[in-house]
């Protein structure tokens, strides 16, 4: 046991010691989680509602207390102490239990939502107020998802408070999730307008540019439906290339996107678990581009089909949307993407499965001003950058040769630059000329990883 008497003699709290307040926070959180299970019992509606809301409040309060106290005690700076010594963040028992719990939640949500009936009914009053209709399992999920981003966003802001880039970026993902992916779509529902997510675009929200969605929105009374088509088409086909040209794919993946938002906040404790091997990179390339190609091809075929009055595909198009939705939407992005956070890291979906990431990545690699610059010969090859890259990029490979890092998968979270102990890396939007130019202060090895 570390002796506190000697350290207390000079009035000091060692930040890595779990104190009473932190333990109280964790206890409150556990009690809150247990309360969330209770509405499943056959009890009356008012009690159910009371239990669910006290569960939500207690677990938020408990974790908030824990994080607040943890970071109040620590100096601002990189705090990855013990990440690979604690089981919860290094695939230990706690990590496996968490993964099983999360995966189980997704399985219930997608295939057995009736098991959540008690919790869903407890949200009815809230749902009526928010969107003018009774709750369903997607409202429950959306609410938990948004709360996770908000709470873990506060944690990220505390943890990275020494870095304005990380703080502002975290505020951005919290804002877009709460506003554009939660409050606005549900308010639209309340106003009897289509539930529309202004922060998701084709090809991630692939059906937004399918003929079926377009004709449905056009037939909506009022101008809003037309505006929605306009919005999604213009951003997907014009806005994305322009914004990516100036800022790289980060403007979306680590600033706006809801999947990215969850990865950057709730997934932050797990970012170091991504696989950095060359083999993983080969898998990434082999999966993500075919997914994009599949979506592009399907969209084109559906339009062709629609123009030909259904002569090409007949009723196949519905079947497609369902199959794709099941395999990619449910299994990949949900069960594996989030359920496996504590085992495979926070960006499995973004890295291996997201068609939007593939599209943005191609633009970032070939038509962008964005790069991560290496500061001359200052790299000491320590490996913090690669370890904490959630996308599994071996950042050090480039840095130790003095090369700028230009990788289609880079989401621009900036964590490599934040954890670098020598300040070697910097995210920059420079001119495209000389973008690949390595420093003259190190001789590059001229050895490639992937041809």
């Amino acid at each position, binding site marked *: 046991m570390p*002796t506190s008497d000697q350290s207390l003699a000079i009035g000091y709290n060692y930040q890595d010691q779990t104190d009473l307040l932190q333990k109280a926070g964790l206890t409150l959180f556990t009690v809150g989680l247990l309360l969330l299970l209770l509405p499943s019992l056959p009890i009356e509606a008012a009690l159910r509602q009371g239990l669910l809301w006290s569960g939500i409040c207690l677990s938020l309060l408990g974790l908030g207390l824990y994080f607040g106290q943890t970071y109040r005690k620590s100096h601002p700076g990189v705090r990855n102490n013990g990440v690979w010594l604690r089981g919860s963040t290094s695939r230990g028992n706690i990590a496996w239990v968490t993964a099983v719990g999360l995966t189980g939640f997704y399985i219930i949500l997608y295939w057995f939502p009736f098991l959540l009936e008690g919790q869903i009914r407890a949200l009815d009053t809230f749902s009526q107020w928010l969107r003018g209709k009774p709750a369903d399992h997607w409202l429950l999920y959306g609410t938990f998802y948004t709360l996770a981003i908000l709470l873990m966003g506060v944690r990220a802001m505390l943890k990275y408070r020494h870095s*304005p*880039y990380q703080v502002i970026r975290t505020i951005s993902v919290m804002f877009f999730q709460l506003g554009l992916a939660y409050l606005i779509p549900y308010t639209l529902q309340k106003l009897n307008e289509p539930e529309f997510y202004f922060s998701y675009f084709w090809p991630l929200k692939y059906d937004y540019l399918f003929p079926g969605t377009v004709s449905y929105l056009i037939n909506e009374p009022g101008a809003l439906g037309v505006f929605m088509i306009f919005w999604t088409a213009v951003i997907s086909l014009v806005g994305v290339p322009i914004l990516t040209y100036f800022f790289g794919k980060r403007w979306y993946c680590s600033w706006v996107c809801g999947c990215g938002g969850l990865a950057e906040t709730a997934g932050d404790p797990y970012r170091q678990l991504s696989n950095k091997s060359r083999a993983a990179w080969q898998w990434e390339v082999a999966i993500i581009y075919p997914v994009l190609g599949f979506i592009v091809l399907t969209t084109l075929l559906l339009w062709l089909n629609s123009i030909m009055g259904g002569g090409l595909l007949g009723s196949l198009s519905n079947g497609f949307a369902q199959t794709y939705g099941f395999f990619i939407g449910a299994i990949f992005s949900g069960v594996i993407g989030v359920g496996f956070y504590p085992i495979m890291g926070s960006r499995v979906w973004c890295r291996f499965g997201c068609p939007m990431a593939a599209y943005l990545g191609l633009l970032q690699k070939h038509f962008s001003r964005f790069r991560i610059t290496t500061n001359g010969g*200052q790299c000491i090859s320590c490996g913090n950058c690669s*370890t904490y890259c959630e996308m599994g990029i071996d950042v050090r490979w480039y840095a130790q040769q003095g090369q700028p890092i230009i990788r289609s998968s880079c989401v621009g979270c900036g964590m490599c630059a934040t954890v670098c102990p020598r300040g070697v890396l910097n995210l920059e939007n420079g001119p495209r000329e000389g973008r690949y130019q390595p420093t003259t202060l190190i001789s590059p090895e001229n050895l490639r990883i992937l041809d």
Partner: protein
Amino acid sequence: MQVVIVGNGVTGVTAAITIRKLNPVALITLISSESTHFFSRTALMYLYMGHMQYRHIKPYEDWFWTEHKLNLMQASVASVDFSAKEVVLSSQVRVPYDKLLLATGSIPRALEIPGENLAGVQGFYSLPDLENLEKYSQQIKRAVIVGGGLIGIELAEMFYTRCIPVTFLVRENYYWGNVLPPEEGNLIQEHIREHGVDLRLNTTLQEIKGDSDGKVKAIVTGQGEEIPTDLVGVAVGVRPNVSFLKGSPLKLNRGILVNPYLETNLPDVYAAGDCAEIVPDKDKNTYIEQLWYTGRMQGETVAHSICNRRTAYSRGIWFNSAKFFDIEYQTYGKVPVKPDSETQTLVWQHPKRKKLLRINYHQPTGKVLGFNLLGIRYRHEVCENWIREEKPISYVLKHLREANFDPEFYRRYEKEIIQAFSRQLSAVIP
């Protein structure tokens, strides 16, 4: 051509990779007793702190070595038979070479005081040192660190993350006083103390006392104070790891003596990195460089010499960096502890936050000489160019923004810096 490299640190590995680049068919063998694969020595502290695991600090995946036909051998070298051109392993196996590179690195310097060999007294340099540290720092009440340099503060940070109270003995009258000017040293030592470290300046270590089991139990300072402790981290510098070469025809002094081409006195035998003591052409003093960067640059240079493209080692404009707990440090060019009479120094320090910029320039000509930075990042290329091109201080101040390498959204301090420097400048130029 059979090239044998003793040592798989940054020098040996950079040399091996560079030789492979210059010569696709050479047989290259790297021998190390410490580990099969190359790892980043500078990252050892992060293993103890739990930021990374051993596999993360290997800069190359294991396929790299086979794909580039770099033969790795984990073995301890007992001696070198220079006349037979063979490296002799402790297993008595002999490894023949056409060209030999000695890149054996350093070992921690000894204190030469009583009690130095007690269990729990150790340096922090190698993988075995890390294992010992892990073993001897379990459940301890206090650790004492001796030596106010980079390894000393690393150890302090490491113990801090394990909640181990630390007493830190520094011989100088402020932290790293033999390298940093006082403002920098004071700023850092204030930061050290904020982390609860019991920092003792002007303090040396007199004696280490052990218990009946041969384990350390206390230290006695130069002032005669006895401090109970369970572990003593010795961080008083390193010396070349060359003892296995003593008594051979190879010329040694403190390190292996080499000319600027990194050639030793024996044909086809080269030395580079921490273990090499370079004898400059003119009658300047010999020098040993013990940094990651210099190791890498020497490795690259010696590879050219080995591949018959004799290249003299020139490290260019000096640079270095470090991190003291949360404060990043960069230096470019010449920033001595005490500037000579012709050097003027401008210092800006943030009134509250831990940020500092020092620029030295040559008073008669105005040309810029060097930069010290704490808590601010500057571009290596820009600083290097300004120093090499001898840009006047007025030019540097006008273009200061171009040097900044801080991340997006970080507050910039050029305005405050220029104002502060203008006041200091007008004081020296009436």
